[in-house]
């Protein structure tokens, strides 16, 4: 089955991983900007990173027939440095019209601090001003519930935010309902130890239905599994769910959400590339 991984950090993965993903049916992926494992020292560090995200990664993905899309921001962890964050936010528009850019992300909270909230709001302001979609990171473990509620508070206060153009990621059993009920998209991240497992993600689909739900691997430089979406597909099949339901979650839903971005130009795999007959 063809699928799309809507959240994966390929700059941290090898070219072999692209090959494996392609063999497993991955036809497109989206890569939000995130923390590199160390704090970057200057706005130019981010400029170079955005260059990599918008030029080299799409090329590397293309070697295996995978279409690469991306999201730009300064992540919540580095947002503690508010002055650097403001420089980055001011620089982001240089890249927004590049091919494959889907919007602003992954913004959000990490330890739920004042600085993180301030920089989050300034990113939202940028997205609204430039009419971009938003992809949101919610915190891990004991900070997730509190941070998700704070994020939803900030978004719901602002009547200009179109909730159908916002994806709130890393939802779990205690946050998914809040996100879906408010009209946002919700992403489930299959990640060892700290997030969801394939079985629990399938449970959530069974409890809430496929509407506005996405599944991703969030594969990065940590202990993560870039092929987690195929694990989810297998678990759905093991439970006897219809292929149409599986395809809805792993393929049609990402396309429906991404299609609201002007940067999303997608060649479906069933259609010959550049088929303008």
């Amino acid at each position, binding site marked *: 089955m063809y699928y799309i991984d809507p959240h994966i950090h390929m700059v941290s993965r090898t070219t072999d991983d692209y090959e494996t993903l392609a063999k497993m049916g991955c036809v497109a992926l989206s890569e939000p900007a995130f923390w590199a494992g160390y704090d970057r020292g200057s706005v130019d560090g981010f400029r170079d990173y955005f260059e990599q995200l918008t030029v080299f990664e799409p090329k590397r993905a293309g070697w295996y027939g995978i279409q690469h899309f991306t999201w730009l921001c300064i992540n919540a962890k580095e947002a503690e440095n508010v002055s650097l964050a403001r420089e980055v936010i001011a620089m982001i528009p240089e890249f927004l019209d590049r091919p494959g850019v889907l919007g602003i992300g992954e913004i959000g909270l990490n330890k*739920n*601090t*004042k600085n993180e*909230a*301030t920089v989050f*709001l300034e990113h939202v302001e940028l997205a609204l001003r430039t009419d971009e979609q938003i992809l949101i990171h919610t915190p891990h*473990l*004991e*900070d*997730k*519930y*509190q941070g998700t*509620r*704070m994020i939803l*508070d*900030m978004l719901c*206060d*602002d*009547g*200009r935010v179109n909730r159908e153009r916002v994806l709130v990621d890393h939802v*779990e*059993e*205690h946050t998914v309902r809040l996100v879906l009920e408010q009209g946002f998209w919700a992403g489930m991240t299959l990640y060892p130890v700290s997030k969801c497992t394939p079985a*629990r993600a399938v*449970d959530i689909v*069974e409890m809430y*239905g496929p509407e506005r739900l996405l599944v991703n691997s969030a594969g990065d430089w940590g202990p993560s599994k870039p092929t987690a979406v195929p694990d989810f597909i297998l678990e759905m099949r*093991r*439970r*006897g*769910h*219809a292929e149409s*339901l599986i395809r809805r979650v792993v393929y049609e839903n990402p396309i429906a959400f991404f299609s609201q971005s002007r940067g999303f130009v997608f060649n479906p795999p069933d259609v010959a590339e550049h088929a303008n007959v």
Partner: protein
Amino acid sequence: MNVRKSAAVFEQEFLPVRAKLLEVAAALDRLDRADGSLATDARRAKIQAAIQVLLRPEDDRAEQIQLIFSRPFEDDWRKKLGVSEVRK
């Protein structure tokens, strides 16, 4: 959506659940065999509270256990942090 029969689900889940219970039991035994006390560690009490949730009949056990391991949310977080509201 396809709704499965409980007997079929149990067939699939019995051995994994048995194995996971044994893992938790063995980890708790391991803690008990170790030297010292965890009486003042709040995380130990959370583990105990989570185990109690498993015994409840409600079907939202996973959500309830998640909440046990979550910091509380306070409605007036903005005031506490000094983040102003942006009603627009």
